[in-house]
């Protein structure tokens, strides 16, 4: 990968008591790629991306994003700097309308015409006709979609998706894959995903975490062929 690095993490570490959730991870994201992060449950994937987006403070190591050291930057500033995170457990504003949900994202990045750009952002994921519904009344799949739409509406440089397809039907997963393919290369996507079909289909590169450490990084084919990964994760 000779591409320009958007994000570089070096020796990133976070322990919780005796648990080495993230333990000396070196990690690079190339501008415009779709990068998947996989690993068994408890491998430290969510903790790792939480360090990247600032939800969990870094214990040691460093993170550079777009040439800037963001290791100590608070989470809300990282969002403004261009890192968007969509929650593993859907975290929309259930008691607000769908339109208010998306408008909160759109106005955060500073839009010229808030109403129009909010509707455009909803239109992009096919939720425009439900703009006036309460977000909590949407079906589960639509709530996941709204969550992703809020991330997209921030127009981030890096979009972190934490298990976005969990609980979605197959038809919804296909639509989701098209959506993600459509945002690169303007955005860079970091995807935590358990669904191997989605990972192999979407990702250009894959990083495998195990016990808080990087087990392997490579293309889908390289990862499939990697014996260490097969033993640890893919089950031979």
């Amino acid at each position, binding site marked *: 990968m000779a591409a320009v690095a958007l994000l570089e993490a070096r020796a990133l570490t976070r322990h919780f008591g005796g648990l080495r959730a993230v333990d000396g991870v070196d990690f690079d994201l190339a501008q415009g790629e779709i990068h998947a992060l996989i690993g068994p449950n408890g491998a430290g994937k969510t903790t790792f991306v939480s360090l990247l*987006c600032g*939800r969990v403070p870094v214990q040691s190591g460093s993170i550079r994003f777009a040439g800037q050291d963001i290791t100590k930057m*608070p*989470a*809300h*500033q990282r*969002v*403004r700097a261009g890192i*968007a*995170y969509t*929650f593993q457990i859907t*975290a*929309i*504003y*259930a*008691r*607000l309308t769908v339109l*208010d949900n998306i*408008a*909160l*994202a759109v*106005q*955060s*990045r500073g839009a010229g015409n*808030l*109403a129009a750009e909010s509707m455009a952002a909803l239109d992009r994921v096919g939720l425009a006709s439900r703009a006036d519904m309460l977000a909590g009344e949407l079906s589960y799949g639509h709530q996941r979609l709204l969550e992703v739409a*809020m991330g997209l509406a*921030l127009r981030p440089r890096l979009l972190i998706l934490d298990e976005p397809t969990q609980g979605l039907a197959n038809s919804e997963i296909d639509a989701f894959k098209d959506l993600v393919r459509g945002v690169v290369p303007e955005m860079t996507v970091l995807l935590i995903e358990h669904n191997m079909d989605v990972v192999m289909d979407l990702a250009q590169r894959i990083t495998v975490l195990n016990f808080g450490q990087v087990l392997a990084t490579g293309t889908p084919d390289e990862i499939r062929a990697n014996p260490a990964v097969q033993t640890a994760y893919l089950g031979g």
Partner: protein
Amino acid sequence: MTGTATKVWALHLGVLAALLAAQFVLPAYHAGNLARIMVLAVYAMGFNIAFGYTGLLSLGHALFFGAGLYGMGMLVALAGWGAGAALVAGIAAGGAMALAVGLLALRTAGVSFMIVTLMFAQAGYLTILYYTPYTRGEEGIVIDRAARVLLGFDLSQDIIRYFAAFALFAAALLVKLALVRSPFGRVMVAMRENEERSRMLGYDPFRIKLAALVVSGIYAGAAGAAYGLLFGYVGASFASIQYSILPLLYVLLGGAGTVLGPFLGAVLMFYLIDLASGITTAHLLVVGVALLVLVLFAPKGILGALRDRGLKWLP
């Protein structure tokens, strides 16, 4: 959306028009009550900005009301300031006090925030009593009639007092309506609904909550300063715990997170206490029963319940 905006403005301007007309229709006793209620409703509106919209349950708002009341009253009584300048100073004192308390108290949340704000307010109340030589303590300061003249109007006259209270109320209502319908208002609600999500949309929870609390303090300070000027009395009881709970009751009754709820709650609670105390000395019992009924049957308050049952556009 424009249909909604029309309904919203028609309702709120209609309420203001009715209040303006009420002065000419109501008997003097009720007009006097209404003037008092409108000032207290401004206080409750401020409380609602923090509690109803931003989700900050403070038990220490009497400190901000008291800051406005004493900020105005002591400048008039001790320094001989004019009513206008003292009113502005009182409003500023409310905001400044909220800023100071917020910088410290907003490091906490939930129950801790309630306790910390309560302690600050108690400290403020005791400070007023401690400096009795200046504040006149429990006895309070009576503001001379001569000092209660604003822009040439004698605020001790019933009709002028009513219109002064109305002017303050109208300004506070319209500013609040604009605020909660603005993008910032949406962010305040976002903080109430899900702070972590809001942070991950790029909003700094501390700054948003601090800004909301300062606006809330400005409202409370304005109400306190106006109350002292209009009714001519500045007393320590207005800074006591009772006056921290009062706006909470108004807001819960009328509907937290609604623009008109605090006013509706203030009217109903005022007359509930007024009527009950004519019947029994245990009028607080009646208030308690009313609150129980409210919690059981309309936990979101009157306007909150109406909003759930069809009036979705109610801001």
